[in-house]
């Protein structure tokens, strides 16, 4: 039941939208995203007929990646640092 499906908005009419995923099209309520500026083409996460959040692509998937990058940058900046790209 907690299955959220990423869908793309293809048409907005008022508080509802027609969304699509893998060729399947559904009527979705945007009632829970009324403060979010949404446009046709935006990907949203849909659960039981309601868009619960807009999806935004992210670079890092764990805070460890940021920690490690910061550490690597520090090492690269230090005179003895070497092989960091």
């Amino acid at each position, binding site marked *: 039941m*907690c299955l959220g499906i990423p869908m793309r908005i293809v048409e907005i009419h008022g508080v509802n939208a027609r969304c699509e995923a893998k060729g399947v099209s559904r009527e979705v*309520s945007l009632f829970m995203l009324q403060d979010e500026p949404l446009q046709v083409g935006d990907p949203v996460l849909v*659960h039981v007929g309601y868009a619960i*959040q807009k999806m935004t*692509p992210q670079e890092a*998937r764990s805070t460890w990646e940021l920690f490690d990058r910061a550490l690597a940058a520090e090492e690269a900046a230090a005179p003895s640092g070497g092989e960091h790209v």
Partner: protein
Amino acid sequence: MSATRSARDWLERIHALPLRGRVRIMNVCGGHERSITRAGLRTLLPAEIELIPGPGCPVCVCPEEDIHQAIHWALTAGVTLVAFGDMLRVPIDRPRREIRSLEQARAAGADVRPVASPTEAVRIAAAAPERPVVFFAAGFETTIAPVAAMLAEGIPDNLSVLLSGRLTWPAVAMLLASGEPGFDCLIAPGHVATVMGPEEWAFVVREHRIPTAVAGFTPESLLAAIYSTLRQHLEGRLFLDNCYPEVVRPGGNPEARALLRRTLEVVDAPWRGIGILPASGFALAAHSWDARRRHPPADHRDRPRAGGMPAGCDCARVVLGRIYPDACKLYGRTCTPRTPVGPCMVSDEGACRIWWTGGVRAPAPAEIPAGVQAP
């Protein structure tokens, strides 16, 4: 780095960690358990890592009395009973020859309809304004927020709600307070955090020193969360990680949370087979929405096991992560998805059903004669 790491990358990183002993990582979402089982993650991870399915199935903990109530109304109160499809096959405490589920009530002529969205419940009620319609809504925060949206938007007069909504974190709080949580790291539910915000899970790290990461439902996201909690565990550097940043933002979805606050109250609530957990349930804020105020209560007097799990069913301990599904004596023997004994074998989010569907078969019936120890 232009794209996020692949599942294979995360797996390699996990295998490179200097694990020294068993680490038990609990998830609290049926969706997580399904992704883990489908992708076969258990067989791909180092042997030290145990992935434990925990309290992640709202249908499994939905009070037996509520289901009985719904069946009772469907059969006697002249109502149309709508419910999420998962609820229809959950058996209650009744003799086998009697009606034990909403599905059987429907077969006996009751007007029971499965829905996939609260908007369908509204549509069904609007199409027949003369007929009372009861929406039996069980679910965790992710599902109850849309129910709140439905209420806030306005529902037809003939529609009322039997609400069995639950919050996920109080079950984890209960496990942690028990002194024997049964896990060393926690994977927090991605869609609950999408709605409620990841901050709800900060107490696990802060108060209980348990490494925690919010995860999504792809192998990449789950493996990232597993990696994150393991590394927190190994390095002793603990924080609440967010491995599902595409949709999990600080504060969650503020609009959804405002709708929940406006239409529902948080109350102490019973969990089937487990007991009452403080501040773990949603209750309707307005009496006018409450089906219990419109229709007569069901009688539980002739039902000695009311509220519990069916006889022999270990679902409550499965839900709490105390045992694995295949440790139940009935798993795969009398209990399969075709002939479910307990709710954990009915729901798509129940660990028993997920394991059985994923190919986990019951250990062969004991071939060792009684009294003889296995080598």
